[in-house]
């Protein structure tokens, strides 16, 4: 029966936070993949998250744009899209680690910024285009169990063992026969 997109989004958000992503980057990843990704994008997200968080580093290439060396999709794509939305003409993503995530991120941002994407080998060049909101996908995910396991393990890093005090106060009484 597969996985609902909403539950994948919730899992990705927790996994993203568990992997150390800043909140907005975890949010962007979860929305991009859950609403616009496919099984390949989900698998790429799990692999990238398992590699951990690396802050985005970019350089001003010239007056026309910026470039990320050794671009990590999880950190670089949100910044690249912000830059293009702020009318930076061109963004280069060199040696991008998870190209499967480019299309979902651009689709998720498509209502606020249009982006034309081209790539040669592992370098992606993003330039401003016409915004045209893309509809979310509706079909369900059917990822390998290993992907779910990876994401679940990362998400578990955000879980806290409950204390007896909080457990006692979190809900109804132990027995409710009234």
């Amino acid at each position, binding site marked *: 029966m597969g996985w*609902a997109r909403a539950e994948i989004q919730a899992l990705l958000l927790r996994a993203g936070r568990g992997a150390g992503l800043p909140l907005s980057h975890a949010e962007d990843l979860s929305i991009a993949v859950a609403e616009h990704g496919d099984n390949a994008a989900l698998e790429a997200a799990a692999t990238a998250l398992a590699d951990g968080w690396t802050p985005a580093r970019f350089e001003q290439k010239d007056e026309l744009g910026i470039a990320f060396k050794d671009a990590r999709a999880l950190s670089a794509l949100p910044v690249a899209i912000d830059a293009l939305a702020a009318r930076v003409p061109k963004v280069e993503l060199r040696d991008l680690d998870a190209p499967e995530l480019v299309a979902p991120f651009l689709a998720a941002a498509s209502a606020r910024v249009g982006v034309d994407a081209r790539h040669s080998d592992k370098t992606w060049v993003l330039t401003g285009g016409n915004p045209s909101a893309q509809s979310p996908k509706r079909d369900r995910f059917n990822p390998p169990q290993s992907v779910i396991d990876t994401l679940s393990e990362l998400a578990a890093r955000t879980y806290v063992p409950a204390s007896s005090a909080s457990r006692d106060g979190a809900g109804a009484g132990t027995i409710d026969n009234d």
Partner: protein
Amino acid sequence: MDGSHTPATLPLRPADEVMTLARLGVMQPTRLSFLRVLMRDLARMEAQVTRPIWSMDAKGHGHAVYSVTLAGHTYSLIAFSRHLADEDRSDRVIATAWDAAFVLFDGVPVPDDIARLAAEVPQQEAGRLGPKELVLSRANKSVRLFNHVVDALRAGRQPEPDQIAATGYLMRTTAVYGNGKFGLSDRAAYCDRPGLSGPFTAEMLTVWLIRGFTHDLAEHLGGAPLDRRIKRHLGIGNATGLGMAPFLVSHPLLIDAWFSVKETALARVLAQETISSDEAARLVELAKQAAAYLASWSVADADAMAGIEALRADWDAFCAGLDASSLAAPSALSLLFAGLECQSCALQELAAAWVIEAFGHLVDDLAHCQASPRRPELDAAMTCAELAQIISDHGAWAMKPDFDTEAQHAQFWYVSEEKLEPRLGRRFEEPGAELETPLDTARQLSALCGDLPDDDTPLWQFLAARPEHRAVARRAQALPSHPYAEVRANMLCEEAAPIHLLRAKLSFFGATRFDPKSRLWTRVTLAQGLPLADEIGTREAAWLPTF
């Protein structure tokens, strides 16, 4: 809405006034609450409810199917009833067995569907659902009243009215899950269907159908029909804990839509220069209904009961000078409301719900603006100084707490390893604060303000270097156009009680008879006073039900 017929409106109440915990914690249901909207939609769409399957043994164990046709679609509640030992009956989310389990199915189930769901649905969180299943729920009997009702019917009489009034429901749901949880259908798959497009509509439809099932089960075991008036007053109970609270923080634009609709409705009603004598008479009648409801609303919690008693007294004083002729005078409603400025939030909120109730023709069209699929989007082209100005103009509430003092961040929200449910811990007494769930919008906004340069640095560049601020930056940017998007409170401080968030959200659902059991959880009644399945389109729903 047709813009050419938009009613006149006054300025909306400011968000600094509306979005406080003190006010959220005393909210009342309105005719725009989701259950009420559902009842009107069912009537408008001429929904028909049938019960194609009733397979229950003499002990009331088995399954039943209720089907409802709605705008060309059929949805079916499949109910599974089983034996539950008294020692296993718990309203806690960590329970593993219930008297009854339910699923709202997209279509009419065939035997294979029922067989599959019979294996999964009673397991609840441990089961696995699919795209044909829209909502998952479970309920426990309110044992005393359920047994009393069955015993009375078996004895050839109706149950005692005071017992019906005291409890008001035969079963209590302890969770109602939707939108993809445990494999359920994504809301996106059905949210554009007429009748299910509003927020939590599928969940509310499920709750209303479960209420009918509880009536049928009692009649089945009692061997006689319940009086119709009694059935109308038997809603469905609900026990709600912390799991519901984070939603209000994690869906800012949706919350803004809910509050904007309510505030717009109030402003439209108060903008009327005069009202008709019939409308004035209706308001007088509704005021009496509210007084009767307050008189019948009793809870065990001493603080909550004191609040109800204070509201009873305030409402009586407020109503003392009310009569139809004075209400029909020019600007009477706006003047009446202006006179409440120095009164309690509880009185103001009850009065707001009261005036909204009487003017469906002015406000009911707003109900369908309560769904918002949008999220805050970063305006990356903004400068840091421009964002600083927005925070200065709209974020003062977040700058008040001194987060260097322990009391201002004494609590932390987290997800428990035990059951993956939200919980609230004491930061300086319990472990795990380093893993806290980011529901600390005020603290995040305060931190952003402290680091944000007040210059023309492009915001995207600042956030590229300081990505920890990016989430709250876009929330802040949303505030000028979505003023009700944030609960304007520090949810980490010692005094911040989650019960206020629960009350606000449940009032939007249409819950009545709030019965808080601690600062962390509450019982409420849903669907009390709503039409029965065979009364759709012929009977109005009660605003504040009395028996």
